[in-house]
């Protein structure tokens, strides 16, 4: 046993004997593992935010459908849904897209009735909008940065409405760490959002909260009992009800869908990594072959040489994977995903204005170690074995 431990220690010496080779191997592992870990970390972080979106949102989402596409709904159906057994609350909501400013900055406008605001809130610097003559908004951090908006700032009319346009006031800015989806948000009262889009009496969807166990019955009742038609044309609007359960299934299914594409992409990168280490380990390193020849000539057996090579690969993979995890962590935490967040999250600048959501879980970290070991071992064990089984004089030539 002591003999094996002594041979294993020579694996550490082998790293020092070829510092360039060891550095190149580590760099190759970093190049492969760091993008993988940052991508998986970001995906896990967004997943956690999505879970919060589902948990704290409604139990059912009612939207309209015409020609199989989402359409808005008249708010006149809100009392009908409220009367259904098991319904606690129905919140009409407007979610719309707008372009603001000279640079046509993308904005997500969300309007919710003032009467359904919480009594107190801590995720805003400022206050919530109030009903009144002036349009009041709470904006997201990216929007505030790009349009140079602060609490108290005024916006000239940026929409068209036959009843007239009003000056708007910024009354709050969302805290940057509450969600990545707040970054381009303009939050207002339901009436303000309806005025901006010139859609009085219409909502994009209804957020329904219900008592536990009543979701299916309410969903069926909404589809069967409530008839909706467009106020202008009288054409039928079909109702679509999406439950939280359906979205949870989507979230779980999306994990496999995403990671399938991700892993396929990085499988190709790993294969290339094996080839890189193959080249640095034996095919392009005659000194290593002569070194193995000398060991054979001094009495080393093939299995002892392979053990030495395995320990060397293990230590390189442990070092490479550990440094990759640290680099990914520092990149996402301290540098806030500079540049890489913009690759994995659509619509984000190179320097995000919010803390990028990420989570380095144990499974991807362990996977990084396993993959690093697989790459280094596959790249070096074959060349070591070929040199070990050759006659010593041939290996030393």
């Amino acid at each position, binding site marked *: 046993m002591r003999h094996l431990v002594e041979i294993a220690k020579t694996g550490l010496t082998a790293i020092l004997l070829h510092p360039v080779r060891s550095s190149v191997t580590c760099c190759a592992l970093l190049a492969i593992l760091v993008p993988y870990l940052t991508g998986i970390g970001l995906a896990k972080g967004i997943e956690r935010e999505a879970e919060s979106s589902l948990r704290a949102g409604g139990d059912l989402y009612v939207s309209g459908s015409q020609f199989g596409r989402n359409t808005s709904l008249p708010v006149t159906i809100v009392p009908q849904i409220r009367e259904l057994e098991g319904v606690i609350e129905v919140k009409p909501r407007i979610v719309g897209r707008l372009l603001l400013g000279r640079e046509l900055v993308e904005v997500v406008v969300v309007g919710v009735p003032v009467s359904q605001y919480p009594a107190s809130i801590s995720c805003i610097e400022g206050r919530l909008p109030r009903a009144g003559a002036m349009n009041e908004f709470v904006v997201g951090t990216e929007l505030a940065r790009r349009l140079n908006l602060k609490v108290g700032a005024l916006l000239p009319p940026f929409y068209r409405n036959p009843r007239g346009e009003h000056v708007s006031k910024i009354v709050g800015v969302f805290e940057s760490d509450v969600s990545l989806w707040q970054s381009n948000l303009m939050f207002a009262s339901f009436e303000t959002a309806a005025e901006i889009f010139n859609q009085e009496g219409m909502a994009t969807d209804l957020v329904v909260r219900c008592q536990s166990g009543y979701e299916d019955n309410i969903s069926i009742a909404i589809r069967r009992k409530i008839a909706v038609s467009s106020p202008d044309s009288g054409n039928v609007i079909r109702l679509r009800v999406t439950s939280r359960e359906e979205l949870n299934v*989507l979230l779980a299914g999306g994990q496999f869908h995403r990671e399938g594409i991700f892993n396929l992409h990085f499988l190709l990168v790993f294969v290339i990594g094996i080839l890189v280490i193959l080249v640095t380990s034996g095919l392009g390193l005659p000194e290593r072959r002569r070194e193995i020849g000398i060991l054979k000539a001094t009495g080393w057996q093939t299995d002892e040489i392979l053990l030495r090579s395995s320990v060397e690969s293990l230590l390189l993979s442990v070092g490479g994977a550990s440094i990759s*995890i640290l680099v990914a962590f520092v990149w996402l935490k301290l540098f806030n995903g500079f540049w890489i967040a913009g690759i994995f999250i659509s619509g984000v600048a190179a320097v995000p204005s919010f803390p990028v959501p990420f989570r380095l879980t144990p499974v991807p970290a362990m996977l990084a170690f396993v993959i690093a070991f697989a790459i280094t071992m596959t790249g070096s064990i074959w060349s070591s074995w070929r040199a070990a089984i050759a006659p010593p004089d041939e290996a030393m030539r």
Partner: protein
Amino acid sequence: MPKQRSRLLVACCLAVSTLSAGGAVVQQSIPQDDVAARRDEFQSLVGGLGFGSSVDLSECPFSFDPRLRTACSHMEGPIPGGFFLCSKHVGCATGYPPLLPTRNTQADSSDHAASR
């Protein structure tokens, strides 16, 4: 002796990097209750908004939130298989399939309303 010192140095570096990596992963597992509470507060305020790896509604609202649009608009054309060419969710950190269409029972409610 210098060789032994170098070996010791490499071993220490490996140990420190491994322990630091482990510490970073463990730190991520520690729940941050105050941040989670404000996150839930925001989501409760807006009624549950956001799901995918897009932060705006440009080009593909589906990649922002499937509650707003149940499928990618590129599925409807003009290019066949356009779903796989949509830059808003293909190749991004998250991806999920479209929401399955539900069985439409609106015909029942229309007939029911007409018969009254």
